[in-house]
């Protein structure tokens, strides 16, 4: 008992430390200003390579689920315009711009039918994400991060776990019980980013005029970069194309 | 029976008879020494630890050892690991930590040990009795013998790889028995490394960049004086040492095909068929032939000493030795009549009918008589002698052909035009007339090795080294005849395996003999043609 007492005193002390040191440690190079004449970038990310055939994995689960067909979430590409889903487009070297709005309604990553939905989310640092378990079975949510505190929680049906991500990092989330299931959280320290929709489209607005390096990240295909000049109050269209290898 | 119980211990084999031990005055407790009775130069080149800095044997300065000699010859070459200092565990004698860590680091070793007599030295009444003998002798209580007892060098505070001497601290009777191998001279286990390194071609091969090519020889020949060759680590099972498989991992191949000849003989085949009915937990001295063993094992015959007693080494009854040394009882036509030419480091001719050998023969018959009639066994062994006399006669005639060819100057290329005998410079420098005898020593001194050496034992170098034109084809043919085929025939006949005796022994020996004849004829013919054309 004495030991616990000593430890808790010690930790109360450490927690004080935590609060005081937080300001120093948040290395935000980004500063917020008014952007009255911001331009908008819209665009499309495409993948021109071949898609792997949909595989049939009989051993995916010990209890065969209703759909024993597994689709790979690695590379989801629209058949209409080759638009690539789940890519994250962001400005690479922006140091000042619009206000970081931390969403009051927490973005959600749900686990349904042994998958994480959505597969990729992009958030601004400081955002809290809610993790849900929508399956009537056990899952766990296991992140591998260094700067943001990693965690690994077991969750049962309808469990909701909220976690705040304070530092820019690309974090992989897995469920160790269902090896196929994983998701990505891309944390950025500025608000200029967007994750592509199912046709590969994205939109980033209120960018202070100037020339920037745009970067697109995809879990399988890696990153692409492009220099783009943003004109005041204008909409510029750009396109990123991943060719096969 | 009672007499038979004393003086033996748990983990090594139990062959000595206590009757013999009890009659002797109590041994003065000198620490066990594998090199007891050897001269100073021998210790300096085989025992003193030099790490991997220099080799071993009289020619140690001419080569650095193989890296693995660290484990094969720990006495001389072991170096403790540098990147993990174990000294703290030895200083504080933390036996538990050895096991805790190695349970995971090398789990096989620890589990092996857990199943050994060392882990539970008092688990059975039999083991208990053996253990209490050791306890009395070593004056300590033994409830468990663990890593620390064998692997910790408390003086140097470092890890050691145990040698026979470490085992001998507790298993003294077995150690002393094993030491007696030296009485019989080579070939034996205790001096098997000497067999490689006292001959000059090992160092010469190393000098010419063939050191790691010797791996195949060294795997058996270095470290045969260690106990774990037969009682493998870390179980050190006595029963394992009593099984033929303990021997045949080394005793195989063209020069000592014991595995092949025993394995395919009636003895061996019955053993393989009924192996599971053999009781290997029984000490050899208590084995009831026909009940515990239906056929003899290697150990049962070779470790039988005499008069019902077994000894913990298998060389005591050897008569023909390896089959390489010519017998005294023949008339030779070649230079074999002068063998061993005054050389002190190879065995003298064998007198098959010496008093000692006749006695040994009767000990063999004692073994055979467990199942065979005395007359049958005696007849069989006599016919083995006859086989060997014939084989040696054939070898003598072949040697005569080669020697005559050389004497007549028809060897091509001649000794003057080819590389000298291996390590001739080293032989002259490192060996004295005391080793080689005056005439041979002088020959090396004056001719610098530019002379042919044919026949047992020093002529066999052609099988272990490659030098320019040395030896020539005909010399190597002769090597095959006397070293391979003669020995195969010998083992085939001795172990009652007709195929090895004939098709791997006698038949190729005769074919090789014909080849030597025709090669000699060809060389003579070419030599004559050359003489005629040159004089024209």
């Amino acid at each position: 008992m004495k030991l616990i007492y000593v430890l808790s005193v010690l930790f109360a002390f450490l927690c004080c430390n935590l609060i005081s040191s937080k300001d120093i440690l948040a290395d935000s190079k980004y500063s917020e200003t008014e952007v009255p004449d911001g331009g908008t970038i819209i665009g499309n990310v495409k993948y021109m390579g071949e898609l792997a055939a949909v595989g049939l994995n009989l051993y995916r689960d010990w209890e065969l689920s209703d759909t024993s067909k597994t689709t790979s979430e690695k590379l989801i590409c629209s058949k209409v315009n080759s638009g690539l889903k789940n890519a994250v487009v962001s400005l690479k070297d922006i140091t000042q711009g619009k206000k970081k709005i931390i969403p009051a309604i927490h973005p959600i990553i749900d686990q349904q039918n042994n998958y994480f939905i959505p597969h990729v989310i992009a958030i601004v640092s400081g955002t809290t994400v809610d993790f849900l378990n929508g399956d009537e079975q056990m899952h766990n949510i296991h992140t591998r991060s260094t700067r943001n505190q990693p965690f690994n929680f077991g969750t049962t049906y309808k469990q909701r776990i909220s976690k705040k991500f304070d530092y820019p990092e690309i974090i992989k989330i897995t469920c160790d019980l269902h090896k196929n299931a994983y998701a990505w959280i891309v944390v950025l320290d500025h608000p200029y980013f967007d994750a592509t929709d199912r046709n590969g489209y994205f939109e980033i607005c209120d960018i202070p005029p100037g020339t920037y390096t745009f970067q697109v990240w995809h879990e399988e295909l890696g990153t692409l970069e492009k220099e783009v000049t943003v004109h005041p109050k204008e909409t510029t269209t750009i396109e990123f194309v991943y060719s096969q290898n | 029976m009672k007499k038979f119980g004393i003086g033996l211990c748990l983990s090594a084999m139990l062959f000595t008879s206590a009757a013999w031990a009890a009659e002797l005055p109590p041994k003065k407790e000198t620490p066990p020494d594998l090199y007891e009775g050897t001269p100073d130069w021998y210790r300096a080149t085989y025992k003193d630890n030099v790490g991997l800095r220099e080799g071993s044997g009289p020619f140690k300065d001419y080569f650095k050892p193989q890296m693995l000699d660290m484990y094969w010859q720990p006495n001389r070459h072991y170096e403790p690991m540098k990147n993990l200092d174990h000294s703290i565990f030895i200083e504080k004698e933390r036996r538990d930590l050895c096991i805790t860590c190695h349970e995971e680091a090398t789990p096989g070793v620890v589990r092996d040990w857990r199943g050994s007599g060392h882990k539970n030295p008092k688990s059975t009444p039999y083991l208990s009795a053996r253990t209490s003998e050791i306890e009395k002798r070593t004056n300590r209580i033994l409830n468990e013998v663990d890593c620390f007892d064998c692997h910790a060098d408390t003086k140097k505070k470092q890890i050691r790889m145990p040698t026979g001497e470490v085992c001998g601290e507790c298993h003294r009777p077995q150690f002393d028995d094993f030491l007696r191998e030296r009485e019989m001279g080579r070939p034996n286990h205790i001096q098997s490394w000497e067999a490689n390194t006292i001959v000059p071609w090992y160092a010469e091969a190393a000098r010419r960049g063939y050191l790691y090519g010797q791996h195949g020889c060294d795997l058996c020949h270095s470290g045969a004086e260690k106990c774990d060759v037969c009682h493998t680590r870390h179980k050190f099972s006595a029963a394992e040492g009593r099984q033929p498989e303990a021997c045949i991992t080394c005793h195989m191949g063209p020069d000592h095909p014991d595995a092949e000849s025993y394995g395919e003989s009636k003895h061996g085949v019955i053993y393989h068929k009924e192996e599971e009915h053999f009781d290997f937990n029984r000490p050899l001295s208590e084995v009831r032939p026909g009940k515990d063993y239906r056929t003899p094992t290697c150990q049962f015959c070779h470790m039988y000493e005499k008069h019902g007693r077994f000894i913990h080494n298998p060389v005591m009854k050897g008569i023909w030795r390896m089959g390489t040394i010519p017998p005294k009882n023949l008339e030779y036509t070649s230079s074999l009549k002068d063998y061993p030419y005054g050389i002190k480091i190879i065995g003298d001719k064998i007198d098959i009918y010496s008093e000692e050998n006749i006695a040994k023969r009767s000990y063999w018959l004692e073994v055979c008589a467990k199942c065979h009639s005395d007359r049958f066994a005696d007849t069989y062994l006599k016919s083995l002698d006859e086989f060997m006399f014939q084989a040696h006669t054939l070898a003598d005639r072949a040697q005569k052909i080669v020697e005559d060819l050389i004497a007549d100057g028809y060897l091509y290329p001649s000794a003057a035009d080819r590389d000298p005998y291996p390590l001739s410079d080293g032989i002259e420098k490192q060996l004295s007339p005391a080793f080689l005898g005056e005439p041979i020593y002088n020959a090396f001194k004056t001719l610098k090795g530019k002379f042919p050496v044919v026949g047992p034992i020093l002529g066999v170098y052609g099988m272990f080294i490659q030098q320019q034109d040395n030896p020539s084809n005909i010399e190597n043919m002769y090597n095959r005849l006397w070293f391979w085929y003669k020995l195969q025939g010998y083992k085939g006949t001795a172990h009652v395996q007709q195929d090895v005796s004939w098709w791997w022994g006698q038949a190729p020996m005769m074919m090789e003999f014909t080849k030597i004849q025709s090669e000699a004829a060809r060389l003579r013919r070419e030599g004559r043609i050359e003489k005629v054309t040159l004089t024209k």
Partner: protein
Amino acid sequence: MKPKVLLNKVSFWCVTAVTSAALMQSIAPVTANEVKIPTEVTDLGKDTYKKYCSPCHGEEGKGDGPVARSMLPKPRDFTRGAYKFRTTPSGSLPTDEDIYRTVSFGVPNSTMIPWDILTEEQRASVIPVLKSFSEAFEVRKPDAPVEVGLRVRPTEKCLAEGKKIYEEKLECWKCHGIEGRGDGPSAAEQEDDFGFPIKPFDFTTGKFKGGNSPQDVYLRFTTGLNGTPMPSFAKELTDEERWCLTYYVMSLIKPEETKK
């Protein structure tokens, strides 16, 4: 029928209690109360680390020391700041005391021996060295240790509830197997954060890696094992449920296998 069952249970609990008591005895806790853990890297710490830790964990704490290559499980890579055995919540860095405890107790079933062979000062001195290998200790601080609730009594009802949690609610068996032998259907595919295959723990051995007291076991599924697939169930289970699961898990120990 009924009395026999009860008798079985009683004898079974006696065995379990005796076993765990024996196991606890064998690694009597070394409290860190008297030892001052330095906050800065000291020369003593550097020396101690170099001599006794770096052969496995590597000079730079990457778990790649010269003898590490043949080891399984692999020595801990300190650069991520992921420590398995903590009193802090899932994902949090460990407290200094947590590290000190692991160093002193070792990790059973691994080559990490209890380093009680070193002095207390030496053991304490390596802690800042270990922390210096990971930037995580610069950006984050350990959370406060989790609260260990009042221990409940290991009644039969409690055991039954633990069994229900193990088999139905949390489905622990999917990795750890119905009998707790670490052979559940998902066992084979598990890997740790460093990409090495990792085996779910075999409870029957009774050599719990984080310590054998009920509180240790309680802490493991309350805090999770960072860097491994083993999650924290702090959010899933009430305090009482966790104690029940603790007792159920400990009841899976097979004394005859513990002896080894």
